[in-house]
């Protein structure tokens, strides 16, 4: 039995070195770090597809800097701890030029230290809570002012039913908590009274929403109430079923959701959700030529990959995931190198044509500019656009409400997040 | 005979398992240095009486008094055992995966608390005691073999041995000779008589033969009550006993 320890040790090391033995000189390696198994696979799987599709298109057009792009796919299996481990592997062993990946804020937070330590580059495609601005991350997803606050404004407008009371319900993790922290201030700034705001959090996979929906019903009874829903994943099903059963409909108590889109809807029983709202930067049903072309391309890709038509839908994070590959390629060409710092510099203010029309990386804060749409859920799991911002919205990683005067600048000799202290920038990094 | 002389004294003890009264209002005592046999048909409550003494069951009411004034029914099993009451069970229960020696090591009289045993190792005296006990049982050559391999009779002895090394003041033996050959029975009987010299022994036994050659007093239980008590002859001549017990062979 003593031999066995050695045996295992050796066996382990061999197998590890085997994994690391990936070699191809004349390609540019990029990492894809999305859960392909576990609870997040449902959402993250399609992202991998569009990323590969984008890489395909790039390679077909001759690659970047004349080299082919070679994706290295890792599966962290929806396990936060594995994310860090896999990220390390991608950066240290595969030496990838950039990584496209992560969905949940948890996973992002757990890989962040890795990327900062080894000066890697991560493109993060999902809408998130903001209050972060890493040198090594490009956040293409919406910040709160690009999704949540427009949603509130819509609900408070006569168009949205001029709501005065808001029930904030979410799954208990960083995204809903931070979003609601900011929304609360935002609502107050809009004259919503303390008793007009309710906050509640349920665990992941929570199933029993009887009591909560009961509360919501009486909260909304006045007809001036709305629900802001940041519940994650499968819990939405019992939640909306309960709403439907208790006869809470969109026209007396609309529920606006931030964390599920077409892909998730395809898997849910949509009937009880129909009529309720969502806020995104992109919908599959957007009526513009670029989107139409993109969807066509993706449908073709689905057929090629044998993805059933039912699951072959596009949504906001997919659009961002697709676009940030294109952004990266464009930036690399512009910089003439895959060196992270050069690419980051090239990305500043980079504009690109996307399925939501024009789209650009902010000159300073590593986030992106895009329009915001409010969509009404249809029975077929698609959305009717009921409202859109007049133009693209500037990303604000730091909300004025929580941190007045705080902003983020990586351009030139910018050092990231700073506070304006009597007209001068005080960078947080200097505090450390 | 007075209570003061008794080592164990049951005072109106009743034990019931939902409804069924295994013991009703039993008054019963054993004197120092006495070898008492407890007989009776199945379900008479013999085992239950031993259980009541060593705390395996708690009486619904009544007192179980040990020595002068210790009320056993208020104590935990292990406390009762430490008072000096050793029990051998009807179905032999020894540690089959341990050697005989280890079986006895566990039984050897010594502090039972965790920290007392954390660094405890047997001293020479205790080792000798264990070995000599094994000798008296004629098992010394198997000292370092697994108990599992012993014959049924030997297992009985081993368990008796485990009670021996606890060196209690009162022995409770439940059917010690069940499944033994005649030789083994005689040997056991000798052993018990030798024990009775300086201990009180309470034996539950079906085998009248064995009882006659071993016990000096006999108590007959029937349906949870003491039917009669006395020398083997006296008991045998009692018509009620004949009726309920011997009558049925």
């Amino acid at each position, binding site marked *: 039995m003593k031999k066995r320890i050695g045996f295992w040790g050796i066996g382990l090391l061999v197998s590890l070195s085997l994994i690391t033995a990936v070699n191809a000189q004349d390609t540019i390696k990029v990492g894809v770090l999305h859960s392909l198994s576990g609870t997040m696979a449902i959402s993250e799987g399609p992202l991998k597809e569009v990323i590969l599709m984008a890489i395909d298109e790039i390679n077909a057009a001759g690659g970047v800097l004349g080299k082919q792009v070679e994706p290295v796919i890792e599966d962290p299996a929806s396990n936060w701890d594995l994310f860090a481990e896999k990220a390390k592997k991608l950066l240290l062993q595969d030496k990838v030029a950039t990584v496209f990946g992560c969905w949940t804020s948890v996973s992002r937070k757990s890989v962040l230290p890795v990327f900062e330590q080894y000066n890697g580059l991560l493109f993060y495609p999902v809408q998130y809570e903001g209050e972060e601005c890493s040198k090594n991350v490009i956040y293409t997803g919406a910040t709160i002012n690009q999704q949540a606050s427009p949603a509130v404004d819509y609900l408070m407008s006569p168009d949205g039913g*001029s709501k005065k009371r808001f029930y904030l319900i979410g799954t208990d993790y960083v995204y809903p908590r931070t979003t609601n922290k900011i929304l609360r201030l*935002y609502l107050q700034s809009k004259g919503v009274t303390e008793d007009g705001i309710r906050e509640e959090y349920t665990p992941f996979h929570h199933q*029993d929403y009887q009591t909560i929906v009961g509360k919501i019903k009486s909260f909304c009874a006045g007809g*001036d109430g709305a629900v802001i829903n940041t519940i994650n994943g499968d819990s939405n099903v019992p939640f909306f079923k309960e709403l439907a059963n208790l006869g809470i409909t969109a026209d007396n108590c609309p529920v606006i959701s931030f964390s599920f889109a077409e892909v998730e809807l395809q898997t849910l029983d949509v009937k009880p959700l129909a009529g309720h709202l969502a806020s995104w930067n992109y919908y599959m049903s957007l009526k513009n030529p670029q989107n*139409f072309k993109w969807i066509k391309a993706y449908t073709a890709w689905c057929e090629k990959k044998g993805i059933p038509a039912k699951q072959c839908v596009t949504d906001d994070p997919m659009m961002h995931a697709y676009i940030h590959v294109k952004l990266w390629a464009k930036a690399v060409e512009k910089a003439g190198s895959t060196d992270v710092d050069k690419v980051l510099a090239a990305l500043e203010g980079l504009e690109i044509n996307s399925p939501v029309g024009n789209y650009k990386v902010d000159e300073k804060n590593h986030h992106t500019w895009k329009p915001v749409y409010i969509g009404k859920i249809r029975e077929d799991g698609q959305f009717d656009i009921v409202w859109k911002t007049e*133009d693209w919205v*500037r990303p604000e990683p730091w909300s004025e409400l929580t941190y007045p005067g705080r902003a983020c600048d990586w351009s030139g000799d910018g050092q990231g997040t700073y506070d304006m202290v009597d007209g001068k920038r005080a960078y947080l990094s200097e505090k450390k | 005979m007075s209570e003061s002389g008794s080592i164990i004294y049951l005072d109106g003890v009743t034990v019931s398992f*939902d409804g069924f009264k295994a013991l009703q209002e039993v008054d019963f005592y054993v004197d120092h240095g006495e070898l008492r046999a407890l007989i009776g048909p199945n379900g008479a409550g013999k085992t239950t009486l031993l259980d009541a003494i060593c705390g395996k069951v708690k009486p619904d009411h009544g007192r179980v008094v040990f020595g002068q004034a210790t009320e056993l029914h208020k104590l935990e099993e292990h406390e009762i055992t430490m008072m000096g009451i050793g029990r051998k069970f009807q179905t032999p229960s020894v540690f089959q995966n341990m050697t005989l020696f280890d079986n006895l090591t566990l039984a050897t009289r010594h502090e039972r608390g965790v920290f007392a045993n954390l660094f405890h190792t047997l001293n020479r005296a205790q080792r000798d005691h264990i070995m000599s006990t094994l000798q008296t049982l004629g098992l010394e050559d198997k000292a370092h073999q697994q108990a599992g391999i012993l014959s049924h009779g030997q297992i009985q002895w081993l368990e008796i041995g485990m009670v021996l090394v606890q060196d209690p003041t009162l022995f409770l033996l439940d059917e010690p000779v069940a499944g033994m050959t005649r030789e083994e029975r005689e040997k056991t009987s000798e052993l018990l008589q030798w024990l009775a010299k300086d201990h009180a022994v309470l034996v539950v036994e079906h085998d009248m033969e064995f009882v006659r050659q071993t016990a000096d007093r006999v108590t007959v239980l029937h349906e949870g009550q003491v039917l009669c008590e006395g020398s083997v002859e006296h008991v045998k001549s009692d018509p009620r006993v004949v009726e309920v017990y011997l009558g049925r062979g």
Partner: protein
Amino acid sequence: MARARTTWSTANVPIYLKRSKGEAVLKLTCIAVVLGGLVGSTLLHTTQARANTLKTYAQGLLQPDTQRAALEGLRDLGEPTVQPLLDALKEGALYSWKGVVYRFTDTGTFVDLDGVPLLDSAGEALLPDDMEPVPLAEDNIALVRRILDGLNLFAADVATRKATVRRLGNLRDAAVIPMLEKALAQETHTDVQAVLRVAMDKLRLASPDPNVRLETIRAFGASRAESALSRIKGLRKTETDPTVLTAIDEAVKSIEDYLRLRNAVGYVFNGVSLASVLLIMSLGLAITFGLMGIINMAHGEMLMLGSYTAYVLQELFATTLPQYLDYYFVVALPLSVVVVGFVGVLMERGILRFLYGRPLESLLVTWGIGMMLQQGARLFFGDQTSVSPPTWFRGGWEIMPGLIFPYGRMFIILLSLLSLAVVYLLLYRSTVGLKIRSVMQNRDMAACMGISSRTVDTLTFAMGTAMAGLAGCALSLIGTVDPEVGKTYIVDSFMVVVLGGVGKLVGTVIAALGVGMSNKILEPLISGTAAAVYAKVAILVLVIFFLQLKPTGLFPAKERTAAGAVR
């Protein structure tokens, strides 16, 4: 040039950039056109002319500064034909190309106002890159909305009408009352009429005439309409007229009294409903654990299999005979019992019977099996699927105004009672049950009496799992169908079994009720953002402390050595 907008929010000020476009000249011409259009619309009235005016207004939409005028024009035009145009404008599907206005359609083509698609020479849809999207100015959105509302009030679709009315009713803007009155006059559908009246009542609360307010408030107080409560309370702050004030207080009181009562009833129902869920889950466990001493850690997964049976059948019906889609559930219920029961047979025959008398081992093995089943389901069905209940389970029975007992939950309550009865009869009133119990108490003796203990074991275990299957099928009505669905209630139902004590059904029933009720009574009591969780935890803690008093549960098995717990 960048143009900072402050209408967006007072506190945080995102900036909306506008890409600079449009020369002054073009603007001027547009204004001219619009004015011309306005004139035209007032003069000519032939349909042809209308089409033209529509076009001219559409042109007007292109420029920010002429947009409003154009919209107002369209409003006065008050025509169904403007709807597609405005919809397109609202959702950003309106484009201009070479000065012509186009809509981009779902079919991926541009069509002009007459619906003529824009095609290239080959007849393919032409998608020029220099198409200019037409932005809708922030401050015009409300106007567009209003125009569309005006049209929707008379839309063909009832649901649309209702929705529009409700929304207008919530506007607190007395100005819309005439709109509604106009609609009411023309409305034929009774439901919509009712909705219209309520909406108007609500709006009347804002009426300047105190008497109007008074009667409206009294009406609401009498009808105990919760919907008006917050509105009336709000009124209290501003109201000056004393009589109205007293009316308000009375109304508020009567409504709130009613609500208190209603909530109480509601909590009880929730409790019972949860209890029934726990019961139907625990029954199976009670059988396998209580009778066989086997902890079936795969019980949750058995439940999952039940749910997936329902799911698969739904898909089958949806593809093969969609017209009977609703009846899939009728088939699913018994089938899930059969399927999962069969799985139970396999488990028992294949594995568990080698582990009798070693409960810990069987616990681990069943957990392993559960793990495999769970992942198997994940691989096969994907991660999130869900069953849509048959139409007759949608909605619920409004037992008292504003309190609805969902049909789905009521069904589960019934089902749990039913299965309880079945299990009871089977175990205690049938020869099978007699055999089962005899084997469980003394298999050797039973064997002597010619009962095949092996068959009985298999049967009993299968029965346990079958119950789980039934539960799963039923729970798919109110929850998700996913590989982890079993995890949701499994721990609670283990608690129920432990609490109830093995071997006695009544224990299980009472424990289920106890846990369910106390959970649902605690949950509202615990305020804060985590009631659901804390209630759950509290229950677990309570159970643990309860076991301090009665380590063998409420109704311990009546044997001389209480099974398992005390040794």
